[in-house]
């Protein structure tokens, strides 16, 4: 019982949960508006991680500033990808339908390309920066300052995005497209421009997550896949296209992973994670917080 009440466990759940939520937000945004399953999401995280690593070692940028650079860089990459490849395709209905139907395969190709470009450029050796490695004590809680930064920045970014969806016209447009794409176009929403903003935002958030990951872990070219998987599990939990759902789902997964393991056994960690994932897909494919689809 002591174990379950330990503030350490809560902090760990929060660190994991925040990262998961942030990862899922970007992925879900792109799926929600464009119906594209970006399996290369983890590679954007990897690129964000490398931006922070190189910017802070070569250019001696402060990791905070480097993380902002990582987010901006990833956002630019998103805009470039959208502008150069997807936008022209949007004009051809048939091609876009094919892209949508096979987005998983296409982005798998993208992911393989990005991984191996990174391996060619940076070698496979893992690299890490040493940053904020002192321990902060809050009451009886001890937490690494770097992990505290992850919680604060991550949650701030998540809530910032949610506020943007609720309060701005861009957010309104995004939500409209997620709910009724065809109707959104009819009421005069510029779909192409909104989608470009979505790509910038989705990639940017992934780049930010990469920057945060680089603060607490090593970066390497093949680090992305587990993050993609985690993000997928979360958006299934929260519901595909449900943005608030991915925040709640991310935190929930963090809790399941830390407390589920504490309650049962560490050896069940992956079985638990994939078990929850499969159960939700089979029983409530619209997600825990999604509305039942109209047939």
């Amino acid at each position: 019982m002591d174990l379950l009440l330990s503030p350490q466990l809560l902090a760990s759940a929060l660190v994991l949960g925040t990262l998961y939520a942030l990862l899922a937000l970007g992925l879900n945004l792109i799926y929600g508006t464009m119906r594209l399953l970006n399996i290369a999401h983890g590679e954007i995280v990897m690129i964000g991680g490398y931006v922070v690593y190189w910017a802070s070692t070569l250019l001696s940028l402060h990791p905070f500033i480097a993380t902002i650079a990582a987010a901006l860089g990833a956002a630019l990459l998103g805009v470039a990808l959208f502008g150069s490849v997807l936008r022209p395709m949007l004009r051809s209905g048939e091609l876009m339908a094919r892209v949508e139907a096979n987005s998983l395969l296409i982005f798998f190709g993208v992911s393989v390309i990005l991984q191996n470009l990174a391996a060619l450029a940076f070698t496979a050796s893992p690299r890490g920066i040493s940053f904020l490695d002192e321990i902060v004590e809050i009451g009886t809680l001890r937490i690494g300052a770097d992990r505290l930064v992850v919680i604060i920045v991550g949650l701030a970014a998540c809530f910032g995005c949610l506020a943007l969806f609720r309060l701005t016209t861009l957010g309104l447009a995004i939500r409209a497209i997620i709910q009724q794409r065809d109707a959104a176009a009819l009421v005069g929403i510029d779909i192409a421009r909104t989608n470009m903003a979505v790509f910038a935002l989705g990639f940017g958030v992934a780049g930010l997550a990469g920057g945060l990951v680089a603060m607490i872990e090593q970066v390497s070219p093949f680090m992305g896949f587990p993050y993609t998987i985690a993000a997928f599990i979360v958006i299934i939990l929260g519901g595909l296209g449900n943005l608030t759902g991915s925040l709640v789902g991310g935190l929930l997964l963090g809790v399941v992973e830390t407390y589920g393991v504490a309650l049962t056994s560490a050896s069940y960690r992956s079985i638990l994670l994939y078990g929850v994932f499969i159960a939700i897909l089979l029983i409530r494919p619209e997600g825990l917080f999604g509305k039942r689809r109209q047939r």
Partner: protein
Amino acid sequence: MKAERFLGAAIATSAIALTSSLAAAQEPVRIGYSISQTGIFADAAVSQQTAYELWQSEVNAEGGLLVDGERRPVEFVVYDDQSDQGQAVRIYESLITDDEVDLLAAPWGTALHFPIVGVLERYQFPVVGNTAASVQLQEVAPGNIWFPTSAIPDRIAARLVEIIQENGYSRVAVMALQLPFSLEVYEYVVPALEDAGIEIVVDETFPPGTNDITAMLVQAQNAQADAILSLTYPGESVMYMNQAREVGIEAPFQFVLVGPTIAFFSQIFGEGANGIVTIGHWSPNRDDWPGARAFFDNYTETFGFPPDYLDSVLAYMSMEILEQAVAEAGLDHDALREAISTGTFQTINGDIAFDGVQNATTPTMLLQLQGGVAEIVWPPVEATADYQPIGE
């Protein structure tokens, strides 16, 4: 790419060889091996590849490998196995039958050593292994592969119980990653601790991919464990270090299985890694091992980071053994097999002789990081420094 970075060193040394001796006129000795350049072993295999390259450049600088009284330059024939077992098997088959190499060196790790045993047996091709460690290697039929490591799980377990018992620790937390090497150590250490009457306060295994072990650490903390065995591979070892510090683990004995002897570990944790105990049977500070210090210095100077005390040393040793066996027996496989099986070899890890497939001379030891260097601390008769509990 890795290979290119090290090519510089190789070219520089072969240029010296060219001008300083007549060896260049000789036909080269071709040595084949597969390297995990991509895939899951890619980051780990660097330790081995670098040691091979260093050995090659040193031998070529001396004029080449001594074969039947003549020095012949060494040439490597290398393929990427993508960390895939099937690829490794294919590569060794074609190294033997199509490239027709003169000698073979080992691939990386237990997972790739075992698959090629069948190929070596079929073609009766002797290979000195290096980076494999498993109790199962005792079951491999002797004759075509030898394992110079003494860090075998059952023996490591026995040493751990010794050091824990003799230092009076009584409450042990064991956490093991569910991968072969760590799990084998776990399987031997838990019953050995029980037999010794030592209380095990945490006893858990966890799957690869786990990114939080706080729950186990808090349990260990609450149970006031004075000895912690983190049976982990490099990635999870880093996680242990970070989260143990966060939880505030102050156990005087902390053992981390794989990772502490690799350069990046000390780079990340610096002083914070001091006191960590790990496996290994080598230290540059043993004066009675000729060449140990020189190997450390040459390696560090060539690559810009220190060697892995375990894998780089084993890889280098395996080439030293091969070199001496070839000097005695030439390139004939049967003669070579006989020479390796019966000979005693002077290596950077002292004298080595084999009994069956195993190293019969080097005792199993434990290392401890002290002031950024790994010192042998156990057993005391082999030690280069005294064991120092953390926090004293």
